[in-house]
């Protein structure tokens, strides 16, 4: 058998050492368990870290397996897993905002609604799970287009229909909307899809900062924008919710 590449063997040994549960090890532990000089071990770890296979904890400086490894083995997040993790947070968002909450993911050329929490009044409402919404006009769609390159490539190609006079259809205008979305971390839809309806959405990321979905609050424009402006506390609540779900997704990755 031909001689194997030594540094790759050492890298593999390091990954095995770090594998299994919540294992975090310092540089000297890793070096001594593998019988390597600290400098050699550090060089390999740094390379693994640059590739995302290893992560270094900021406070303790210890190393652990990186999210890239999980992504390789399990390349997508199951939407039902996403719903299960989001359940508590989206309930709370509906309750605190008094509006309905939707969770959406990219599907084909649109947004697939994977979870829906009713507006907390006693009115009759229909569960919208499974419905599709357009990418270019809804708050959920804009957030996905701004953060997910796959969604972006879809939205530039689809016909961007003008649902209302306020829908942005021109590509350059739409791109600057996405820039704005990325800059402030959220997107809005004020009567751009349905007359009288406004919504605010924020992105949900997994631990690797991959956008996996978006969460939105939707309601009557009179309630969401009482003075023609979106209520800032609503924006804050949606972003808090998105962050909480993102945290929940990251918390159990390894």
């Amino acid at each position: 058998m031909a001689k194997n590449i030594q540094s790759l063997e050492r890298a593999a040994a390091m990954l095995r050492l770090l594998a299994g549960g919540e294992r975090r090890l310092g540089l000297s532990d890793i070096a001594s368990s593998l019988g390597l000089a600290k400098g050699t071990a550090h060089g390999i770890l740094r390379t693994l870290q640059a590739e995302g296979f290893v992560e270094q904890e900021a406070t303790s400086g210890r190393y652990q397996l990186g999210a890239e490894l999980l992504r390789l083995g399990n390349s997508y997040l199951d939407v039902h897993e996403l719903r299960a993790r989001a359940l508590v947070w989206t309930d709370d968002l509906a309750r605190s905002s008094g509006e309905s909450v939707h969770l959406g993911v990219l599907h084909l050329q649109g947004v697939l609604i994977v979870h829906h929490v009713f507006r907390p009044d006693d009115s009759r409402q229909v569960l919208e799970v499974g419905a599709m919404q357009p990418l270019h006009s809804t708050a959920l769609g804009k957030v996905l287009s701004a953060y997910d390159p796959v969604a972006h490539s879809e939205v530039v190609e689809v016909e961007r229909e003008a649902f209302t006079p306020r829908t942005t259809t021109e590509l350059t205008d739409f791109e600057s909307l996405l820039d704005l979305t990325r800059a402030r971390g959220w997107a809005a839809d004020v009567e751009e899809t349905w007359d009288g309806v406004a919504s605010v959405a924020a992105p949900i990321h997994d631990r690797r900062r991959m956008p996996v979905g978006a969460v939105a609050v939707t309601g009557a424009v009179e309630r969401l924008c009482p003075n023609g402006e979106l209520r800032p506390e609503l924006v804050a609540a949606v972003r808090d919710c998105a962050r909480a779900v993102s945290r929940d997704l990251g918390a159990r990755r390894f």
Partner: protein
Amino acid sequence: MTDAHTSGPFIAAIDQGTTSSRCIVFDKDGRIVSVDQKEHEQIFPKPGWVEHDAAEIWTNVQEVVAGALSKGGIAASDVKAIGITNQRETTLLWDKNTGEPVHNALVWQDTRTDALCKELGRNVGQDRFRRETGLPLASYFAGPKIRWMLDNVEGLRERAEAGDILFGTMDSWVIWNLTGGADGGVHVTDVTNASRTMLMNLHTLAWDEKIAESMGVPLNVLPEIRSSAEVYGHVKDGVLAGVPVASALGDQQAALFGQTCFAEGEAKSTYGTGTFMLMNTGDKIINSYSGLLTTVGYQIGEEKPVYALEGSIAVTGSLVQWMRDQMGLIKSAAEIETLASSVEDNGGAYFVPAFSGLFAPYWRSDARGVIAGLTRYVTKAHIARAVLEATAWQTREITDAMTKDSGVELTALKVDGGMTSNNLLMQTLSDFLDAPVVRPMVAETTCLGAAYAAGLAVGFWPDTDALRANWRRAAEWTPRMDADRRDSEYKSWLKAVERTMGWIEDEE
């Protein structure tokens, strides 16, 4: 989330559960303000035996109460009352002078009293005490567990007869310790927990002296039976010193209360590892002829008690776990929905998970699980669908039994528990029951129920109407299946159920 809702006053609830103890703080709207949780050790001394270290549990309870308060930045003076909910039937005896348990607690799942229960049935069988207690003689319930400890811990019976020993389910243990323990702690239980001991008469809500005597349980170890919502005493030490301890409810009854099933005919079903369904039967003690249990739903202070029928399904969420861990067909529990959604129907396959026999309404311990209706057409996706359908059909069987016993048609089913995040299951449930299925906004209905009862006791909420006003619908699934298809599939399910029976031939 920090906003106007998270300012006081608050109610705290302790949920002393089978695997962990939790404390949740709620605000006036019934919203969660803060949570803390700690797991405790499951002790398995022999196959079928399950024990808990009650001292560890008490330490954990103190920690999660302190933890919930500090996490939420909550001042003890803002906590107006504390409520208790608990794993039911788990049995403890302790020394009232030292506060030390005389043995580990015998957990409800512990089957060591199987033989004793058979013996207690004498020539009558497992329904010997059913008319008085609403329960069959089964190893879950506390009475026979007390007897086992008295028989098996050396010198215990003498100490009990001398008046040095106290019995309690976990509600009693937590309340006794909160209110001072050996230094003046109150020894009480509530009607719902007492109704799971097999020692309480459902009609009088008092200990049944005759049954206690037949079981060999001295009356002086038993706690005083109180309502589910009243001030039992005040916290003596710790972060919540001085706060009234104002409710106790067994976990499933607490969920019924938290779901605000206050009217006769209202029912809730909690979907976890197993599933527990309770239906409010008002002031009627309904004797079940369909294998359901009769139990106390709750009692608020001086008001009349409210009774309930209970049906449980042994294997629901655990079937999904089995598909993941034993079969390896899915990587996470949530994936069952993805797999099941990839097909339109079950492809003719039915899965009856009678892993340890059939429970309500059949009670056949000779049954074992089957997958029926297999053809070469069936894929793993069809099996995944059959797995979800099994939970829905079993719920249908329980609701049919409840309708038969009570004469009340189910108008809607309120659901909670982890499996409610499974959209396909919830839709299937609605299709099979031919009734709307409703999920409330607060998933933590067990803790919420305990908080509600405690809040009522101290006037934090004026009445059950105020609690109903807090209830919010988060989602509702309505039936979409046509009646003919439902009927023919139900028939196939029942046929599959028949195939499970009689598998075990020599039952010892």
